């Protein structure tokens, strides 16, 4: 089944309208005391959750919003509405 996502501005839309922005890894780590290894982990290492994970998406063909939402990676279905709608 094709992926659909709920944009906080435009509502439910075809997944092809969106660009995947990666896992949500939380806020950028503070620069003070940040080691190259820790920064590399933050930028490049992913959890690759088999199940529901929080992700960034960009409504490329629509309103141009960046937002976070939850997707079940095993079924490729939106699991919960976007964070902005809560």
């Amino acid at each position, binding site marked *: 089944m094709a992926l659909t996502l709920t944009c906080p*501005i*435009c509502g439910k*839309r075809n997944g092809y*309208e969106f660009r995947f922005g990666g896992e949500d890894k939380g806020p950028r780590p503070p620069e003070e005391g940040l080691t190259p290894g820790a920064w590399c982990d933050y930028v490049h290492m992913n959890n690759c959750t088999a199940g529901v994970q929080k992700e960034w998406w960009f*409504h*490329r*063909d*629509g*309103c*141009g919003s960046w937002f976070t939402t939850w997707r079940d990676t095993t079924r490729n279905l939106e699991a919960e509405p976007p964070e902005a709608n809560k």
Partner: protein
Amino acid sequence: MADIRRQSPMRFNTGPCRTEVRDNWTVTLAYDDEGDGPWLTDLAHKIRWDLQDGNIDAVKPSGLTIPASPGRCTLAGGTLINRMNGTQASIYHLGAKAPALPDFAGYTDVSESMVFLALFGPGVFYIAEKLTNLDFMDPAGKAPFLLQGPFCHIPCQIVILEKTPDGSGGFLLTCSRGYGDSMVAAILKAGAEFNLRPAGENRFDTWISCLSGEI
């Protein structure tokens, strides 16, 4: 110094029967055989502004209030304001004359960088549904309202100005200028079975005047 000449990004195969030059644009007022509708009108010469500001609710373009919710629109006095998101709105001047761009950094005149067309008349939404999976006839959408999404697979801003349950009404569409010819070709091809024809500005003005309650 030679006058500049502004060129619409759209071209129709039909020749116009009446034109006038306005602000360096050659504006088609009417075509020979416009038929009974639906119609496609090139509005490239109409002035459009983009407005971006962190405190956008406090800005009053042409003295009008910007709608509070994204997707909502205001049409008054020939000016259409479309709320796009929390910090952005688009403003279309549909009347014969547009005001000067306000002296405020949030405004950008995007008229010459975008395609701007109107598709209106009987059965127009049956043409639209051949070209997009956006739901123009959504019962929850009360005209005028804004949709931002793909039309002919091209990211567009679409403002539904009028809709009736029989698929008639009309909408405005903008997209990047480079898609002009391809967009027109696709729309005319999809609309051929509905007798879609190019129409001049006069017919569009009549429709807008009816919507605004001016006639």
